[in-house]
């Protein structure tokens, strides 16, 4: 099987890329990237494998952190939470797990499975179930396409493991997991029902770790060459620059556990005189100009510092920041009728239908795969 053996510098690139794919949310990748690098420093390996290289009957476990980011920066993970989830799962299904992967590539969760994989010597699949960040578990391409809600496992640092052996819907599963996480002190690791290699090949968003790496690499190269990192990202992703300007207004409030608000960006330079509004619910959801919708969920609205290309999260937004608002077409797996019921505008409470923008992205695996056998 062909692997991509990650180095520390790869983690740095991926951390930057998953920040961009976080579309304003997804949690800060910093601690996750430190944990991944700590694994490499201890001599362990993080090996990526392409979904196409998975055996059709391979057993794949999607893993990630769940909880409040504000708590996660204080009660940092023990490191074996994912291992406990995986072992519980193996006992439940009566066979070995062959590979792990991320439910969500956006933010720190795009990196989280690497820690468990390194500890157990398992490969990580270069794919995920969102191609970006979304707030809830039912919003993965896996659940959208029929992944079983059970068994699902939740583990904390202290050794508690919760198993859901039956859930009536992915939405109900989300509620049960959230309640369990609160009982565990608001940080936990979750693993959803193991999937076959064939299922992951069909319904996983392919090569999103590679995509993150390329995004990070593109930004770092542009910085080194002192060229425009935002333009480089757009060229890389085939996205569109919606507006370049500065933040002139930010309204935020917490509603039902989510950060909701609206951001207003006033154009500068060639965009002078134009005004863009972006709706926020943890992530950037809808971008409008004079009432006309320019981009909407599930397409990716990313906001980057115009000068450095650093992704700017919803919490960091404030008046005066010089930002570029870009739209990246969502992967085709998020654009199906079935998917839009879970991740389209109506799923987020809007009364309009999804109008796609641009051709769906298809990320290529990085060249590093070709170098190692």
């Amino acid at each position, binding site marked *: 099987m062909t692997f991509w053996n990650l180095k520390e510098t790869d983690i740095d690139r991926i951390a930057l890329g998953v920040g961009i794919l976080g579309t304003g949310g997804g949690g800060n990748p910093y601690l996750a990237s*430190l944990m991944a690098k700590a694994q490499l420093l201890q001599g362990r390996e993080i090996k990526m494998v392409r979904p196409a290289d998975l055996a059709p009957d391979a057993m794949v476990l999607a893993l990630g952190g769940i909880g409040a980011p*504000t708590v996660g920066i*204080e009660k940092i993970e*023990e490191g074996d939470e994912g291992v406990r989830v995986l072992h519980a799962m193996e006992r439940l299904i009566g066979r070995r797990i062959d590979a792990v992967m991320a439910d969500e590539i956006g933010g720190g969760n795009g990196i989280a499975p690497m820690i468990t994989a390194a500890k157990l010597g398992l490969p990580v699949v270069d794919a995920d179930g969102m191609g970006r960040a979304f707030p809830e578990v039912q919003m993965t391409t896996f659940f959208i396409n029929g992944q079983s809600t059970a068994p699902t496992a939740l583990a904390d640092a*202290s050794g508690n493991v919760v198993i859901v052996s039956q859930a009536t819907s992915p939405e109900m599963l989300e509620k049960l997991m959230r309640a369990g996480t609160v009982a565990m002190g608001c940080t936990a690791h979750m693993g959803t029902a193991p999937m076959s290699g064939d299922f992951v090949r069909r319904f996983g968003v392919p090569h999103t770790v590679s995509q993150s790496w390329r995004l990070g690499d593109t930004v770092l190269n542009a910085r080194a060459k002192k060229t425009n990192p935002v333009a480089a990202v757009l060229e890389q992703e085939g996205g569109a620059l919606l507006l370049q300007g500065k933040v*002139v*207004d930010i309204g935020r409030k917490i509603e039902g556990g989510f950060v909701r608000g609206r951001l207003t960006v006033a154009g500068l330079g060639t965009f002078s005189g134009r005004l863009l509004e972006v709706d926020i619910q943890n992530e950037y959801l809808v971008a409008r100009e004079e009432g006309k919708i320019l981009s909407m969920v599930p397409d990716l609205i990313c906001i980057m510092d115009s000068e450095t290309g650093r992704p700017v999260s919803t919490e960091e937004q404030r*008046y*005066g920041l010089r930002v570029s608002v870009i739209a990246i077409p969502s992967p085709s797996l998020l654009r199906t009728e079935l998917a839009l019921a879970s991740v389209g505008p109506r799923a987020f409470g809007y009364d309009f239908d999804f109008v796609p923008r641009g051709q769906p992205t298809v990320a290529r695996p990085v060249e590093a795969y070709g170098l190692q056998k």
Partner: protein
Amino acid sequence: MTKQLRIGVDVGGTNTDAALLQGEEVLSTIKTATTANVTDGVSSAIRAVLLAASVASDRVGAVMIGTTHFLNALVERRHLQRTGILRLCGPATRALPPMIDWPEDLRLVVDGGAALVGGGVNYDGSSIAPLDTDAIRLACRDWRERGIGAIAICSVFALVDPRMEIAAAEIVAEEVPDVSVSLSHRIGKTGLLQRESATILNASLHRIGHETVAAFRHAFGELGLSCPLYLTQNDGTLMSAEYAERFPVFTMASGPTNSMRGAAFLTGLKDAVVIDIGGTTTDIGMLVSGFPRSRGEGATVAGVRTNFRVPDVFSFGLGGGSRVRDGDDLRIGPDSVGFRLPEKALCFGGDELTATDIAVAAGLVDLGDKTRLKHLDRAVVKAALNKMKRDVEAVVDQMKPGPDPIPAILVGGGSVLIDGFLEGTSVSLRPEHFGSANAIGAAIAQVSGEVDNIVSLEGQSRQSAVEGVIAEARRRAVEAGAAEDTVVLAEIDETPLSYLPGNAMRIAAKVVGDLNS
């Protein structure tokens, strides 16, 4: 504020400034060169500022010093104490051991070994694991044998419940009686790794903190001063010398803060943008209710990520010593002739075109020999002035809280580079004594207390939770030297936590009061 005499001193990289104040009146200001031995420079600045006003040293009621001395010790990796680290965490947090994101060379100097032991609480105050006293004693014995002189203790969610850190400190004191101990709940805010790093930095600076304060006291004796000594901290407020010995790490970002507080005092403005232009850099920050706005993310100190609240200051390479290059593309800075301005600038007989030469040629300031600038093209002078102003305006706009024009205060010796009104501001002021705003800011500083905590609302009302946080902030202000009856609430911030049910809140409070004198 009483009418007693106070001396403010700001020790910068190049200059040590001092100001003598009586009540709100500035009696004298002085600028001297910073010396290798910080205490000598401070002594001579104090002597000079007293001499300039013909005031006897026994009339001085308080001296306030802002210094980058401890920061320099970290940056240069000098005089640091090897520190033992005790993390109270139970099974949690082990994915990231202490100092994992430190620069390797600094870690090698400071790292005295870490023990991760039973303890710590969850966000709601429930225990992660009981305090493992045996493991603490075991670690202490190892540190004692190896002669470790400083210990940092950091418990998970120590800000929710600090009792385990306090209990651990008592055990440490029994086992290693002469060691200095730093507790994380007194140092930083939520964010374990950064708070722990800040606590380790503080512990490693303990000895130099002690020595420096002792040296200042000795110098005071020689100067005939018998008044209390205070140091200014990151937020522009004061701490007593005794407090500074225990918390040297709080002095890290006092420089820009002192300038901003001085600017507020000199103009009477409480909400404004402050532009502090020195010899090498320009620092631009916002005054909100008379205090510098702090930055959302924490400060990186000597390459170490911490989560101190430091002023939200944007610094860039523009100052009186900035090199000016005329060509197709006019460039000013970011490189500078620095402290060699008096020999390098054209107007002083040197051979480098500097920002100061531009200001002199434009008639903004009268320095050196103007005739040496006759050859300068008027268009170049005008373009350079415009460029400096535009660069400052762009940053001012980025720092402003909203689109409305706000007042701008220009301070620092280099502020003469800016000619006239700044776009986006309502008024541009350059007050009297603008060159010594930093020392004046130190002299007029108040005392603060600050708490930033996650509070569970199980079993208590929001009101009582907020009151509890404010009471703790008041307690800290009084401990740091504030007169109890003058302490008022300066900032309160309540944030419900996302992804949590409605029973947890982050509450941050800051109080300020006048010096207890």
